[in-house]
């Protein structure tokens, strides 16, 4: 700069000032970049956090059972009988008791064992037995979903844990009933290092995490641990396994009292896993089941159908009315005070909070007209009024974009105004109108608040068959699942959000496609 900064082109003072101004200029541009960066990273964070949850819920753990559907118990099952849930569940329970005899005499352990599979989990199987008479008298090979907390434990979502190989031990002794000690020179050094690294207080101390040692099908809970030996109580299996199999340790960092899964249940899980009876499979029931009180059994089918029925009503009302209204306002309305009022009114309606439409629905459709509560027909009506301004505004701009020359040409050959509009203007504006209609429908699909007020938040366990049946909708299902206390609902909610977003993305792809077609023309 030295050469050009010399007078006469600019004084020293002006240059100094210029440097300051240029710095301000660069700063200002950076503010813009930062703002864009903030908005985009917020979007990325939102999508990533939902995707993580959804991926976790996309698969779940099931346990294999061989159900003996004997004639004695199930022989009198008829197609109109209630599904024999209790009988099937008793079979499952007996099967587990036979596998883990240590629970037979201990009511607390039996209760914990029941916690592996919930009673409702057998409902689909019980229904299948009712439906299919041939099932009776045969052994059914079934896979039942593991209860939600254990599923989350295996996925590593709750009670963080890690597995450390220990290897073979030199000696195994039965110290007293149920208590075993394992000894091996230096066998536990690695485990001790891991425990101290992970900050697990020494095992056996109250309030600390747990260390489970397992070999083959057997597991013990360590109560004392040093570099050359460990001792503890046998949770499941036999002492013999520790002599013949290599030992592996599972470190669970959270204290037993602070997590929903007990050490005993984990020991059983490890045994079932060693049996090869636990598998992680795709979670199709999310799409094929209806809502349930148990997260592992719940699905979004009823809500998907409910949303579709609602949208059907919305589309049937909002799209034709919106398009016809826009035609009136754009092509026929005289420019007077009434149309001016309608115009301001439409612009304002587009910005009225959606919950106010819910209040309207509750007071007028439910209260004054006595239409059924929780029904897609009412939801559809309310959402139709909600998106009507959106459809009208979009359709009007589509009509505005049709060149005046088209109208002039049609009028000049003696077409009436009505014929001009419906034969010549409308076909040209149609893609734009369709775009607006789809965007309006996308808005309706995502609305929650108005549906809450007209009672579409009810627990619906049956797929609605008509717009007057009780139903719920996808966004409402998301709301009810997201506000449940149990952790297992979080990934489930993420998965339903993904379903909802998939629908929305599909709609938007159609819009983009339409726009491109339209622009090419």
């Amino acid at each position, binding site marked *: 700069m030295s050469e050009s900064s010399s007078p006469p082109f600019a004084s020293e003072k002006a240059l100094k000032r210029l440097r300051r101004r240029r710095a301000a200029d660069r700063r200002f541009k950076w503010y813009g970049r930062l703002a864009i960066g903030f908005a985009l990273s917020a979007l990325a964070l*939102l999508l990533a956090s939902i995707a993580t949850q959804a991926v976790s819920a996309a698969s779940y753990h099931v346990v294999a059972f061989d159900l003996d559907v004997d004639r004695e118990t199930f022989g009198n099952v008829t197609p109109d009988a209630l599904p024999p849930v209790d009988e099937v569940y008793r079979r499952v329970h007996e099967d587990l008791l036979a596998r883990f005899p240590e629970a037979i005499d201990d009511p607390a352990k039996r209760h914990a064992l029941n916690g592996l599979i919930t009673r409702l989990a057998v409902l689909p199987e019980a229904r299948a037995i009712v439906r299919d008479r041939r099932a009776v008298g045969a052994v059914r090979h079934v896979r039942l979903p593991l209860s939600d907390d254990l599923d989350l434990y295996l996925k590593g979502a709750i009670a963080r844990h890690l597995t450390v190989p220990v290897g073979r031990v030199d000696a195994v002794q039965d110290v007293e009933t149920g208590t075993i000690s394992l000894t091996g020179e230096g066998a536990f050094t690695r485990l001790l290092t891991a425990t101290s690294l992970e900050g697990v207080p020494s095992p056996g101390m109250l309030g600390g995490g747990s260390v489970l040692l397992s070999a083959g099908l057997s597991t013990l809970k360590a109560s004392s641990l040093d570099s050359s030996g460990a001792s503890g109580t046998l949770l499941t299996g036999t002492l013999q396994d520790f002599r013949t199999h290599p030992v592996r340790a599972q470190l669970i960092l959270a204290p037993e009292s602070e997590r929903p899964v007990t050490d005993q249940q984990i020991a059983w899980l490890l045994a079932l896993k060693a049996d090869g009876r636990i598998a992680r499979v795709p979670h199709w029931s999310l799409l094929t089941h209806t809502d349930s009180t148990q997260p592992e059994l719940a699905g979004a089918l009823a809500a998907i159908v409910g949303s579709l029925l609602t949208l059907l009503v919305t589309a049937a009302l909002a799209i034709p009315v919106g398009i016809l209204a826009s035609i009136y306002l754009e092509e026929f309305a005289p420019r007077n005070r009434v149309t001016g009022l309608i115009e301001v009114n439409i612009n304002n309606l587009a*910005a009225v909070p959606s919950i*106010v439409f819910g*209040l*309207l629905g509750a007071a007028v459709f439910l209260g004054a007209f006595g239409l059924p509560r929780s029904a897609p027909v009412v939801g559809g009506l309310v959402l139709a009024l909600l998106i009507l301004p959106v459809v009208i505004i979009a359709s009007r701009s589509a009509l505005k974009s049709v060149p005046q020359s088209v109208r002039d040409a049609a009028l000049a050959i003696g077409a009436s105004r009505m014929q001009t509009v419906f034969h010549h203007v409308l076909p040209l504006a149609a893609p734009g109108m369709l775009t607006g209609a789809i965007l309006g429908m996308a808005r309706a699909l995502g609305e929650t608040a108005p549906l809450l*007020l007209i009672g579409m938040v009810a627990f619906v366990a049956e797929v609605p068959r008509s717009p007057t049946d009780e139903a719920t909708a996808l966004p409402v299902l998301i709301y009810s699942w997201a506000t449940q206390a149990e952790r297992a609902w979080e990934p489930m909610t993420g998965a339903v959000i993904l379903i909802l*977003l998939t629908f929305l993305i599909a709609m938007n792809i159609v819009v983009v496609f339409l726009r491109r077609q339209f622009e090419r023309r």
Partner: protein
Amino acid sequence: MLSELGHLPMDFLLLAAAVTLASLGFIAGRLRAEQFSFNGDEHPNSRPNAHGYFVLMWSLVPVVLVGLGYTFFGEGTSRAILRSELPAGFSILSPGELTTYIETVARAARMPDFLSGERVFDTVTDRYGEIRGTLNLLTLLLACVLSFGGMVLARRSLSPAFRARQHVESGIEWFLFLCAALAIATTVGIVASLVFESMRFFAEVPVWDFLFGTRWNAQTSAEFGALPLFFGTFMISFLAMVVAAPVGLFAAIYLSEYASGRVRAIIKPLLEILAGIPTVVYGFFALLVIAPTVRTVALWINAQLIAWGLADGALLAAQPTSALAAGIVMGIMVIPFVSSLSDDVIRAVPQSLRDGAFAMGATKSEAIRQVVVPAALPGIIAALLLAVSRAIGETMIVVMAAGQRARISPDPTSDLTTITVQIVSLLTGESEFDSPKTLSAFALGLVLFLVTLVFNLVAITVVKRFREKYE
């Protein structure tokens, strides 16, 4: 017999009647018109199809009107009749209980062959079925008679000189007008229902106590001081605007003034995704990610303040759900509302003003800050107003992430409640609007509607003026 008629599929029957009668009308009109063209000397004014449509119109309108009346008022009328016929013994029930009872009866009557085994209930249900059956029959008869009458009258008025096409077209124009007027009807419906229910509420709770009372406890005891709700709404909207206003504005400036065409084509749709994500998803995001983060940070600040000896105890409330969490997420949600409209108005500022500033030797940021933004200021203010209106009325994020506790606290990490949260919690699962508790939701709704109305109208007017100035 009559109660069996109560199960008629009325939607289907009315639709079928409409289609049949309309077709009949069209055929009748067209046949009549074809006779003109064969034996008339003069050229008929309209083509035969237009005559057909004319008769069709007059046969269809009565069916549609009767059908709409039936759909909206049928159920209410039947229930009112049933209620008036109930024996005196029912007077021990409160109005609310009576409504619930009748609703149960109506639901039972909808199921074929329903028998509860309770004599009184079954008798009432049967009577309700009879009322419905009578109503159904009357409706169908009325629709057919009126439609047929319309058809006959319309057909009689046909003649070669009859301007059928003009009549049909003005009929269609009326129909188009009615569609447009539905938007007005919606507003009237909103205002009427809010005002009506609010009046009932204010008959029991003085307006003054509602607007300026500081204790809100509608669920358990009858305390209806809504000031804490107004405060919570204001606080969360303010926090949202603290996020959205600078981010949205600078994003708009960057997109309209700095970004190249290609960058703009990528970033603008990405920002608009933010506006397309359903609010319930934002609520889940707030609950899952932002609220725990806010709490962790607040706890850390508390610990630091204590460690440095600046505070004796916890300074921030650090609740699991907080105004700040809801505010941040709501701010993210309204960013595109600010940026998109601001971008529009900034781009509408004529290039000549920028040229003028550059020609004076202004740097780009000086031109933007001192000339372009001031010129676009009305539009930018309108964008901010619309965003505030959006934030005030937003429901799902606050329902999920703001809390239920009505209180006035300047601490953003404490949980506050808002107008919309209370409307949802008061009305979810309620079917009868007869207690001050449920009616108060409508009073809150009225306040919400009026406040957002003011913001919207100012914004709409300002934007309109701005457009007129530069376009």
